[in-house]
């Protein structure tokens, strides 16, 4: 009885002290929630064993905390090991040499000028063909712009990173050679645009897929030659998401600006639409890519992880949509109308699910235990697999009744590539949720898939025109 009286309030006091200690620990951004949970478990066990050895609560707490090490030293150790958590912070001044962590003010200003210079170069490059009489409006039969669309922007982004990162001479040379080789090959293709049918399908496929394949080259430059490190690849995936968001925001702003300038000049009877269309829009669109890439790096803190926030909002909504679709199909007994375009629609659905999964995985702390968000992700992937399976069954046998056109082969191939990715993800995810596999396996799988996607894009862009006779 007596004993109980002394222990209960003391235990309460102990809890308060542990609470304070934990709060203090959390203030450090290098120590994540799960790390502090792990440390707390350690502290509690230590205190329990010290108390069993005869120390009072107070003594046990002090000894335990002392043994864990001063929090400053602890933080430094964690920061060294988990430099990725400081990704968004400019606290550690670039001593790890990865270049993404800004150093001095003068360095930042220099980066800005280089980025703006390259943006201007990209803007100039897109109008350069005009000097040789090639314009957007009077598109000659050679289809110069569609086949080269990626080369007006991506080399400049890659150049920015190649300048910024310790890429090395061979890395820079290899990258330049890869871009140049792709440019030469694609310009040797004898695409011909007939006035009647419009551009050939293989040209459009090349236009859509070549930039995706070349984006891997940007990734190599981004990783600064340390592409093999899986963390750098994940950083590049994060970069891609933030880049996309920045670019969309800049495009929206640019659209507003152009609409307003057209309006205000229209008010005094000066029509500037031709100027906007043939100069401001293309130059702005090209230059903005480099600016967006630079902004992602320079302002990492401002727009901290927008892509993961968006995935968190849309993953449950998308899962609901897909489940509702399956339920409606089952309830009404309706079948998927096996039209030609339907496969492309399902490709898009798979691509969106792939993106949602990728960005939620990129933002997730691989060390934290399974949570409700993970079940939502698995549900989403499972629903997407079911829906796509239904679509493939509906179209499957009929797809090639319409004939082997490049578009259909590309659409089916895309579907299979994404289906395999999501199938593998579902297996790894459920393994993780059942405690059989580490979450990092799933991340490895997604990162490995970058190569598959780039390879597939390259096949469509460069081999399909050959295989289908440039139709």
């Amino acid at each position, binding site marked *: 009885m007596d004993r109980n009286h002394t222990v209960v309030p003391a235990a309460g006091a102990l809890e308060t002290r542990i609470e304070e200690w934990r709060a203090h620990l959390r203030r450090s951004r290098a120590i994540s929630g799960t790390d502090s949970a*792990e440390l707390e478990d350690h502290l509690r066990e230590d205190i329990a064993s010290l108390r069993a050895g005869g120390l009072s609560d107070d003594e046990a707490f002090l000894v335990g905390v002392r043994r864990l*090490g001063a929090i400053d030293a602890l933080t430094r150790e964690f920061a060294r090991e*988990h430099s990725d958590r400081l990704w968004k912070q400019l606290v550690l001044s670039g001593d790890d040499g990865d270049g993404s962590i800004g150093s001095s003010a003068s360095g930042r200003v220099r980066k800005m000028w280089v980025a703006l210079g390259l943006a201007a170069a990209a803007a100039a490059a897109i109008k350069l063909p005009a000097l040789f009489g090639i314009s957007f409006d009077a598109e000659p039969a050679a289809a110069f712009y569609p086949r080269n669309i990626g080369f007006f922007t991506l080399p400049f982004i890659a150049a920015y990173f190649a300048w910024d990162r310790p890429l090395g001479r061979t890395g820079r040379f290899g990258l330049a050679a890869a871009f140049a080789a792709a440019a030469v090959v694609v310009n040797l293709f004898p695409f011909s645009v007939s006035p009647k049918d419009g551009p050939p399908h293989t040209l459009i496929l090349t236009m859509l897929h070549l930039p995706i394949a070349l984006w891997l080259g940007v990734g190599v430059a981004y990783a600064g030659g340390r592409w093999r490190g899986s963390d750098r690849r994940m950083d590049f995936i994060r970069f891609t998401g933030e880049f996309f968001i920045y670019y969309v925001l800049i495009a929206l702003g640019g659209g507003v600006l152009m609409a307003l300038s057209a309006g205000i000049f229209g008010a005094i009877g000066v029509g500037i639409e031709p100027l906007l269309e043939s100069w401001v829009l293309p130059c702005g669109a090209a230059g903005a890519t480099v600016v967006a890439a630079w902004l992602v790096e320079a302002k990492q803190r401002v727009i901290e992880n927008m892509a993961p926030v968006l995935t968190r909002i849309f993953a449950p909504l998308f899962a609901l949509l897909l489940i509702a679709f399956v339920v409606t199909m089952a309830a009404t007994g309706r079948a998927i109308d096996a039209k030609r375009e339907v496969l492309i629609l399902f490709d898009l659905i798979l691509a969106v699910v792939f993106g949602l999964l990728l960005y939620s995985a990129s933002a997730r702390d691989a060390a934290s235990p399974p949570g409700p968000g993970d079940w939502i992700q698995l549900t989403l992937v499972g629903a997407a697999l079911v829906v796509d399976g239904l679509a493939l069954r509906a179209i499957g046998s009929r797809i090639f009744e319409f004939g082997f056109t490049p578009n259909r082969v590309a659409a089916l191939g895309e579907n299979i590539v994404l289906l395999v990715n999501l199938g593998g993800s579902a297996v790894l995810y459920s393994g993780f949720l059942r405690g059989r596999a580490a979450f990092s396996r799933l991340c490895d799988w997604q990162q490995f898939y970058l190569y598959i996607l780039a390879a597939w894009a390259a096949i469509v862009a460069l081999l399909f025109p050959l295989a289908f006779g440039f139709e």
Partner: protein
Amino acid sequence: MSINKDLVAASSTALVLAILADGDSYGYAILKRVREMSGGELEWSDGMLYPVLHRLERSRLVESRWARAESGRQRKYYRITKAGRHQLADERRQWQTVHKTLEKLRS
């Protein structure tokens, strides 16, 4: 005798892997084991162990999972991987080489 700090840091990988090769374990138990086995002469600061464990996990030498301990709290358990066992064998050879060299130099 207290063991020099650099040596403690250098030996941490081998020791943690050797303990995990015996069976899955968690931070506090690993530390206790090191103390016991070294007769209390290898003194690790508790907080330094976790960054080591996380580094090993990141380089896929160990895997971790969360499970409920008898106390009812969530606890992070570590398990050695195949790559970890290879690394351990390698580390053992390295330490033995150092040890043998020292022994030979004495005689």
